[in-house]
């Protein structure tokens, strides 16, 4: 029953003088309920302590462990080896800067995204510690949360043709972020404000709509709907702009 798994893993440590990018083969016996988290840790502890990869929660909630598994960006911790053939190829996510082996720098990318989308509630209201909270419709709260479920794993960005071609493209995660604030009544930005951020080729009009992003999103975020929603909204805003309304 037990298989021998053959891993082909991308190796390159930019901080090591003699390191050159190459693929390295590892053999590992499969165990019951094995995930790539278990497999990679065993490889590091038993075969090559220098292997670089990222895990944090190991439970599919933090987004640290995205990598390209047999050609598809996904979370390594929630990938069971029994769902894979006995040859497994692991590559780091494209688009993001490589740190070493399977580890890429999503942190800096997303931090820049917060700045460019101004990822926070814009309001003139001041918090009053003595007052009761402002009311909100529960449906609205749940709608916001639906869009806030993004774990910034970067899968959508690395699957996106536009993002691979132009590094100023905001990407689906950023457009989803904007949508999160658009539906939030606490954010007082107008459509025109949002248009300034995403009403261009780096934003909503650069997207080719092929939806690789939604296909790979491990949280099943409704990226397609959000892109459509924003494109319609921004289309209308663009028309208003042109006719000076």
């Amino acid at each position, binding site marked *: 029953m037990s298989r021998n798994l053959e891993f082909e893993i991308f190796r390159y440590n930019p901080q090591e003088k003699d390191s050159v990018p190459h693929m390295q083969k590892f053999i590992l016996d499969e165990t019951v309920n094995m995930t790539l988290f278990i497999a990679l840790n065993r490889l590091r502890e038993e075969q090559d302590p220098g292997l*670089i990869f990222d895990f944090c929660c*190991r439970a599919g909630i933090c987004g640290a462990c995205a990598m390209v598994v047999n050609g598809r960006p996904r979370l390594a911790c929630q990938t069971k080896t029994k769902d894979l053939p006995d040859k497994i190829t692991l590559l780091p996510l494209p688009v993001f800067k490589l740190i070493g082996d399977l580890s890429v720098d999503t942190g800096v990318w997303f931090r820049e995204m917060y700045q460019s989308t101004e990822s*926070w509630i814009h309001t003139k209201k001041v918090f009053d510690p003595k007052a009761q909270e402002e*009311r909100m419709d529960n449906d609205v709260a*749940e709608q916001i949360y639906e869009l806030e479920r993004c*774990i910034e794993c970067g899968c959508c960005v690395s699957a996106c043709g536009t993002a691979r071609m132009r590094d100023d493209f905001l990407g689906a995660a950023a457009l989803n972020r904007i949508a999160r604030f658009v539906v939030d009544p606490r954010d007082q930005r107008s459509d025109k404000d949002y248009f300034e951020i995403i009403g261009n080729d780096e934003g909503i009009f650069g997207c080719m709509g092929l939806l690789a992003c939604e296909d790979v999103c491990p949280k099943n975020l409704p990226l397609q709907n959000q892109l459509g929603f924003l494109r319609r909204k921004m289309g209308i805003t663009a028309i208003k702009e042109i006719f000076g309304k």
Partner: protein
Amino acid sequence: MQTYYSDLLVIGAGLAGERVAVESAQKGFDVICLSIVPARRSHSSAAQGGMQAALGNCAKGEGDNCDIHFGDTVRGSDWGCDQEVARLFADNAPIEMRRLAHWGVPWNRVVPGKSFYFKGGEKFEKVEKEENEGLITARSFGGTAKWRTCYTSDGTGHAVMCTMDNRCAELGINVFDRKEAISLIHDGDTCMGAVVRCLRTGELEVYLSKATAICTGGFGRIYKATTNAVICDGGGHIIAHETGVVPIGNPESIQFHPTGIVPTDILVTEGCRGDGGTLLDVNEERFMNIYEPEKAELASRDVVSRWMTHHMRQGKGVKSAYGEHLWLDIRHLGDKHISTKLREVDEICHHFLGIDPRKQLIPVRPTQHYTMAGIRTNKDGAVYGLKGLFSAGEAACWDMHGFNRLGGNSLAETVVAGGIIGGKIVEFLEGYETRFKTSVVSEAVKKQQERIDNLISGRNGTENVYAVRAELQEALMKGCFVFRNGPDLEECVETLKGVLEKSRKVGLVSSGAGANFELGSALKLEGQVRLGLCIATGALNRTESRGSHNREDFPARNDRDWLNRTLAYWPEGADEPDLKYEETTPYFELPPGDRGYGGGSIIEADKTEIEAKTIKR
């Protein structure tokens, strides 16, 4: 060498760290936050259940107030907490939840009208009032008198973490990820910052600051079975502890959660039981209602963990390749509930077990979950022993949890404590001037560089990092888990002393270059073993059972001799901790009494002493 200056250096960018940072930045201070991973990946985002605050908006929370929350917290702590701190916490929690709403957290809200809920597998009806429509609602959690756990679906930690991190971005706080603090810079009196290893390049950097706050979360990873993320490895505790002047408070106080899934120990939320899930044994029969007729599955976690272990010892466990376990049953909650309110659980079952919780039972067992143990601070968050050093969140023993932390009280603590302690840091910084002694700084860096060189060259020896770490983890599982007793603890201490020796003789197999993980693990190994020794020695000394610390050979809670807090120091060059004790609390608002659950007898403290310390509010 890259050197950074700031007014405040926050080590750790989870909820506690970022909340501290926000408070100081709002007052105009220059703040730098460091984190091993991008802030949002911090373990805070893993919390699914929710956070407690006595808002009293929902039907089952009606009549709730800060006093009741305070009482639950003190009882939950088994009178091991600092009551002044518990009071500060309970009073501020509602304000802090509202503030989070203002900043952008999409809290679930009260929906008026009739709805159903489950308790112990039975269906009940409740009616939410029209007038409360749209206010922050709450769910039920273990160990609380009222429904007071605020939540956002099944992703409270994630949602709050996003909002807090957004707030940091808005305030322009520098949050640097892939930076790991590996030692404090101090002269024995004052803390001046930290030596940090960049996890992109492997290079050492220096961060100098007037105030430093350690907010690095828990250290569950020194146990083999834990719900904690892989970065919860005690880094912050270690750098404070190894100064020799900072004690770890109540090291023996470690919480175990009843429902880690088998085999990976990923947590399924207490919400499962809160919403009406039940625990079943090998015969698929309920048992918690036998041991705890009133609270059953909703008794506090240490109690549930213990009865589970007990029940398995009675031969009622389910045998598996990974050892024995029990079942968690949420089938009766139905598809809609599971796919919305418990979606994360649904996903965990699907992704990690390959089962459908609507139709199948979930294999669970008690697992290390939370460290009440931590860097000892006073009620202002100031760390004992070093001026300018603060700590907040799970890393700290601010001590509102005593010997057992209530579900939902920890996430709430991160933001409440972060706010209060952030404010105290602001007070400290105002008008404070300091000098950074260059000799102290260069000495600190040199020491770390030497350690790294020695590990890479194998000068100290060739012990394998991962093998030594496994020995530590196994020793703790064996001697310092849910049940403890004298002989096992003695053996554990002896084993760990041997492991400590080995940890000093570690050498790397790999080159150690760049973002190398083996080097990072090696750098904190000895410190981890020291933490393990603090737990084991603290537990061996404490000859009573209180909260999560359960001695089979001393089943009574002994207020006469043990109404105190352990302080574990590690003097420089020592091979074992130096244990001291201090009073648990400056006063009692709630004098020691029965916890109301968990049974066990109490050896009472001297009545006049208690009365003298009791105050009225």
